[in-house]
């Protein structure tokens, strides 16, 4: 996040930012015209009041005793107020609409890009970061236009208009009255810039306060178990006090200077009163003109207050725009080739023939994760993949639906290179059961139908039945309509697993891939899921990753991975007989390890 502060508004970035408004050219023009008209209309009410006061002053100074005709003047004041406020209304609408149009378009494009980007991209980024780009950064881009552009235009038009009107009233009067404006403006801007790092510092130390709190609550149990509440209190109080002292340091810096520059600005009143009185006595201006000057200057001062934020808005908009464009510009990693074919048919009518030919892969080119993987999965076979954490098991199976592309070698499905098949077709032919069984915040029914949104209820139930989930689903209060996911009911690991299986089964995939999903369930659930998988795997080509030997013993073919290479392969019995890595893993899981012997007599 710290790089946000550094971004400069480069002309190129600025042009690209403006180009975003290109598609809304008409609306941009309309909004701009209305905005300028609104600023101009803001000058009117005070001007008509001035006319009225001058008119009354002239009549009464001339000694008129009867009430004069005032209604045209009063009506002009009212009309000016009405016009100003009508424009204000139009401006609010058009500006908001323009900003929503542009930001929504950006958000939509970010969303589409995020979905399109390869998993390699998602591995590098965090959810929080992407969210920040779609919310905060898009907002700061919008703020740049609504605030920096429109507010600057407003200030320029209003201040310019006020200067012209005052010059027209009396040039010397205008110059005298406006004399403190440049200095006050400069000082305001300068103090704003100088205090910014201090504000940042203060808000950073506030961040430390909340971080301490957050951690304290997340670790509540550990803190109690270790009796560390006093130490935590001291830590928190220290951070909280630090924040207050940082905050007061800024406030002390800031208050004095803001008050100071306001004071400079407030000299407008006495200064213009002195010259105004002189000119009025000479008869060159009226009381109304003095009043007009006061009114305009008050409005200018209000607008100037915003300029403190200008630099900040520009910078955060530039940083925001950069981060937004970064997402949009990222090349989608994996796409269908032009002329990509449909899924080729299996030679044996069921499942698919999957061949890995010398496949190598690394998330980063210099760090290979898989090297020279070659094997063949016959249609209908179940291939089990075992190995230590980090040996490349999950990576290997992610290549099948093309979550990543191999860096060398080729993967053939039914004799056709994977990359020649349409990505969409391919992925819909591969049922993938992920290790983390991600469910969406919607009903069970919609979760199962995730890959086939229009699927009829019978098909959904059949899939749930095949995954042995139907019975527990029916026992839930709302059955298939029970909301699950982050904001719904919490399912046990085994239950979520079955829904994930049903979701994959509903696609009726030719290839079924299951990452070790049984790691976090108890032995009984694991056994049930194993049985379920055996049932749903019929008639497909299956790939299964597992940590427990018991889960893979029945596979047609077992690949033992070590450091990204196939160390051994064969059936369970072949591998046991071989006495290699697999055999060792088997012993560790099924026989008493020597390390435990010493406790036998305990």
């Amino acid at each position, binding site marked *: 996040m710290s790089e946000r502060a550094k971004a400069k508004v480069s002309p190129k970035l600025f042009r690209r930012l403006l180009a975003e408004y290109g598609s809304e050219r008409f609306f941009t023009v309309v909004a701009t015209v209305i905005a300028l008209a609104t600023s101009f209309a803001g000058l009117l009410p005070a001007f008509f009041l001035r006319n009225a006061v001058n008119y009354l002053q002239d009549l009464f100074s001339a000694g008129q005793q009867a009430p004069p005709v005032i209604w045209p003047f009063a009506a002009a004041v009212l009309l000016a107020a009405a016009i100003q406020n009508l424009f204000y209304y139009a401006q609010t609408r058009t500006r908001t609409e323009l900003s929503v149009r542009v930001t929504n378009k950006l958000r939509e494009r970010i969303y589409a890009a995020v979905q399109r980007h390869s998993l390699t991209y998602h591995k590098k980024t965090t959810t929080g970061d992407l969210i920040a780009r779609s919310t905060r950064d898009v907002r700061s881009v919008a703020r740049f236009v609504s605030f920096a552009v429109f507010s600057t235009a407003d200030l320029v038009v209003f201040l310019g208009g006020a200067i012209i009107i005052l010059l027209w009233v009396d040039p010397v009067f205008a110059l005298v009255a406006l004399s403190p404006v440049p200095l006050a403006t400069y000082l305001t801007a300068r103090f704003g810039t100088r205090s910014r790092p201090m504000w940042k510092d203060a808000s950073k130390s506030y961040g430390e306060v909340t971080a301490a709190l957050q951690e304290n609550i997340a670790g509540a149990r550990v803190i109690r178990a270790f009796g560390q509440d006093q130490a935590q209190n001291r830590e928190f109080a220290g951070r909280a006090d630090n924040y207050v002292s940082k905050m007061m340091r800024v406030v002390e810096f800031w208050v004095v200077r803001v008050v100071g520059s306001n004071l400079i600005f407030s000299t407008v009143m006495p200064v213009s009163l002195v010259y105004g009185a002189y000119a009025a006595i000479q008869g060159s201006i009226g*009381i109304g003109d003095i009043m007009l000057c006061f009114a305009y200057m008050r409005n200018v001062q209000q607008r100037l207050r915003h300029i403190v934020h200008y630099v900040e808005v520009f910078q955060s908009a530039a940083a925001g725009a950069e981060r937004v464009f970064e997402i949009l510009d990222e090349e989608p990693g994996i796409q269908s080739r032009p002329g990509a074919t449909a899924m080729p048919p299996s030679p044996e009518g069921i499942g698919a023939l999957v061949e890995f030919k010398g496949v190598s892969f690394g998330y980063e080119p210099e760090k290979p994760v898989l090297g020279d993987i070659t094997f063949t999965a016959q249609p209908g076979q179940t291939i089990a993949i075992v190995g230590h954490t980090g040996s490349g098991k999950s990576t290997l199976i992610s290549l099948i639906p093309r979550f990543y592309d191999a860096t060398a070698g080729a993967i053939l499905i039914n004799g056709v290179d994977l990359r020649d098949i349409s990505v969409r077709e391919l992925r819909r032919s591969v049922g993938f059961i992920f290790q983390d069984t991600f469910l969406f915040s919607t009903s069970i029914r919609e979760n199962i139908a995730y890959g086939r949104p229009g699927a009829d209820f019978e098909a959904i139930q059949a899939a749930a039945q095949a995954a042995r989930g139907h019975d527990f689903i029916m026992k839930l209060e709302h059955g298939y309509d029970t909301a699950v996911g982050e904001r719904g009911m919490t399912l046990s690991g085994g239950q979520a697993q079955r829904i994930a299986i049903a979701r994959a089964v509903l696609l009726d995939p030719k290839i079924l891939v299951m990452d070790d999903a049984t790691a976090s369930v108890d032995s009984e659930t694991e056994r049930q899921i194993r049985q379920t998988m055996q049932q749903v795997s019929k008639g497909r080509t299956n790939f299964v990753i597992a940590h427990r030997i018991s889960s893979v013993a029945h596979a047609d073919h077992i690949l033992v991975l070590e450091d990204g290479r196939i160390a051994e392969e064969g059936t369970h019995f072949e591998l046991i007989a071989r006495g290699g890595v697999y055999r060792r893993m088997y012993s560790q899981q099924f026989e008493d390890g020597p390390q435990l012997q010493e406790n036998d007599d305990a």
Partner: protein
Amino acid sequence: MPDQDLEEHFARAHPSLSTFRRIFPFVRPYWRQLVICMVIEVAFVGLWALDPHFIKIAVDEFILQGVFKGAVYVAGLMALNSVLRAAMSAVQQLSLWRTGENTLNDVRKHLFAHIQHLSMNFFDREKQGHIIARVDRDVEFLGQLIIEAPILIVHTLSSMVVVGFILITYDWRLCVLVAALAPAVGAAAWASSKWGLPAYRSVRRSMSRMTANLVENVSGVHVVQAFGREEQNLSTYQTLLSEYKANTMVGAMVRGITFPGMMFVFGLANAAVIAYAAYGVPRGYVTIGEIPATIMYIGMIYGPIMMIAQMYDQFLAASAAAERVVQLMDSKPSITDKPGARDIPTIKGHIAFEHVHFKYDSDPHSPWILEDVSFDAKPGDIVALVGPTGSGKSSIVNLIPRFYEPQRGRITVDGHDIYQVKQKSLQDQIGVVLQENFLFTGTVMDNLKFGRPETTDEEAVAAAKALGSHHTIERLAQGYQTDARERGAAISHGERQLICFTRALIADPRILILDEATSSVDTDTEIAIQRALWKLMEGRTAFVVAHRLSTVRHASKIFVIQDGKIVESGTHHQLLALNRSYAGMFEEFMGHG
């Protein structure tokens, strides 16, 4: 932010006296400063209201009479007035900020210390985010209630009084005219908050729906791509976007109508003053100088009214926040020491459960989580608890350090009823290693010393060596100095577990409780963990909630828990010989099932 949080954020409540009474003690240390600020505010308003009057004097007494020198004196007075006001405002601002920040800081510290005393069931019940919001956002809101609101009210009231007084001295009819339109400003402002707030809320709601949708599709992007749902999802998101746009436009319309509405009342008042002046000046009711003065005064009293009306809703929201803060302050720890409770002497480790019944809620109809659990663990025993998920294994071990209290039955440690001794003296001697393996911000070394901050680095390393975690820790990116919470999960599950074991060994508890992690670690790490585990349990009474049977085979006692009851107990071999649940589970684990 989920919808519910947002609703809470905007919840409104009328400030209640009892809430104020609870908050007031935090303001009391600073009441002098606060009173001084109020006094300054009144004086400030008084000086501020002089400016238009100076104009009137300059016009009537000097300009219209052709006396230039007098006007210069008046301008001098105005300049002096500005300087005075600036000085006052600087003093007041500083004092207000200091008072506000200090008061809020005291509240934060108080809340934090209070949270340390709350029992575990508080943390089960409340979402983390909600507790944080109390101390963070709600306290911030409190500032509006105790600082901004009083100042704004003092400002508005004193402006009304001072300006009203001055206008009456000009002409009572003029005063009535200005006062008569004031309610119109208030009404427009009120309408703005009345319509504006729901509009604003629905904008926030649709924004949070968009964010939630995006969050979900980013975290589940692998599923999205695997199931080819990109287009469908985009069109859902497009619907949310247009909903957001529609809501935003409603908000813009409300703002676009009500704000100009208020401004129009200003125009109306100005026109009325002009019209009145045309009749009033010839009759001698008002002077010419009073016209610009009155026009300036209109801004002075309508402005604050507009502000109060606009901020009214914020104040209500702040009151609701204050109430929530007070609620947290008043939440009592459900487990407290009995009067006259003493420290438990150094624990030997004899633990007995006698007919313990327990559930997490107090609903008389809900089923027991633990029902009539009785057992006896001798010092040095290693007790393993096995059974299906949800059977009550974790609940048993949660009762030993008094994280919760059973509804019936008794638990004794070395013969002392644990409800008759001081909670802290008990917890200090019990080490808990949890499934979640929570590490705190800081280095691995800091984490090792967590339970015993006075430990030296050498002692910590020695402990790690004794436990067999030294090499694992050394292999981390920066060894013992590795940042424990750095993103990117530089520390794996298994490593984390070893660090937590070492942390527990350094704390050197008399009773050890382990909630075994179920996550998948490879066999090598598993072996290292097992080895460390046995080392850690040596010489202590230990309870292990076991999910894998390989851990429990060597326990001195195994309890099989089912539906909150101990259904079998004995050693591994005894239970196998019994050939019931345990034997079945073991066989299944071995993969012969």
